């Protein structure tokens, strides 16, 4: 694997991201990853909170456009995440927690898609209580996103190798 890591670390894009002394390189990618997180998780939080009984006057179906905000956030983070990976492939790929983070995000997306069925199906009208199964899905979704965020944040503290020839 080290041969692969050091090959990726030599890509001009990664070198530029790591070494360009401007906030428009690596720091800007981090900013995108944080704002993308706010939209991806934020849209999930709004829909999950409504399903769990917060803002009962909002019909669940009226929130369907928030899925656009959610996907916009997701794609910003997919792209910025790949850029971060290109900058420091060894750091992420040698850390087991990174794979757990990806798994948690995958579960979060599966849950968001299951909840989407209720939202677009017009399941919960104004003043109505969500069915038990939807409330379980919403609570699970909140827990999974909190876990993904925690896993992501802990990456900085659990990595062992920063680059092929540098430890964290």
């Amino acid at each position, binding site marked *: 694997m080290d041969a692969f890591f050091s090959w990726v670390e030599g890509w001009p894009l990664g070198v530029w991201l790591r070494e360009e002394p401007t*906030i428009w390189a690596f*720091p800007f990618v*981090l*900013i995108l990853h*944080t*704002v993308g*997180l*706010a*939209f991806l*998780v*934020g*849209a*999930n*939080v*709004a829909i*999950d*909170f*409504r399903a769990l009984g*917060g*803002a*009962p*006057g*909002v*019909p669940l*179906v*009226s*929130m*369907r*456009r*928030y899925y656009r*905000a959610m996907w916009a956030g997701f794609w910003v983070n997919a792209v910025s995440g790949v850029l971060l990976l290109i900058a420091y492939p060894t750091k992420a790929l040698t850390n087991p927690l990174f794979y757990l983070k990806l798994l948690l995000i995958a579960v979060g997306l599966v849950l968001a898609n299951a909840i989407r069925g209720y939202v677009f199906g017009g399941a919960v009208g*104004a003043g109505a209580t969500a069915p038990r199964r939807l409330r379980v899905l919403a609570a699970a979704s909140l827990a999974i*996103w*909190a876990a993904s*965020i*925690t896993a*992501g*944040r*802990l990456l*900085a*503290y659990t990595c062992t190798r920063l680059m092929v020839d540098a430890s964290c």
Partner: protein
Amino acid sequence: MLIVMEWDWLNDHLRAVLNTLYYTPMGEFMRTSTWAWPTFESLHFIGMSLLAGTIVMFDLRLLGFARAVPVRALHRLIPFGIAGFLVNMLTGICFICATPDQYLFNAAFRWKVIFIVIAGLNVMFFYTRVFRRLEAFSAENVAPPLPARLVGGISLGAWIGVMSAGRLLTFFRP
């Protein structure tokens, strides 16, 4: 010269403030515990997500996005965003106590505070000028009036500013 004298006076007081913060039990705890900092950072991001899920989503609605959502009823989510903001104030104060010089002499931190103040003033404008007119554009497909759009846009911009400046803190450490 008066200006120099005033600057010295300010520096002396700033140094006293730094020392006081540094020797608080919270600062001590944040520096010595292995897991305090990573745990509080995770909480800081979870608090941010609460704020994004309620206040940022409300801002989008004020801007005219997701017009099907009855805006007056959506306002019921705002207390959760305030809770997220309080979590972040508390965890943020803990970071500052741990290493006060890393924040008080940091340009990114100053920008972060400026954006929080802008967001706060905007909240005051919202509750004095826009809140009681929410019902008027709560119905589906009614375009929000200009003041509502303005409040939504300023809030969205300010919170994105807060997040960006927060992310830049590490790159502007003294």
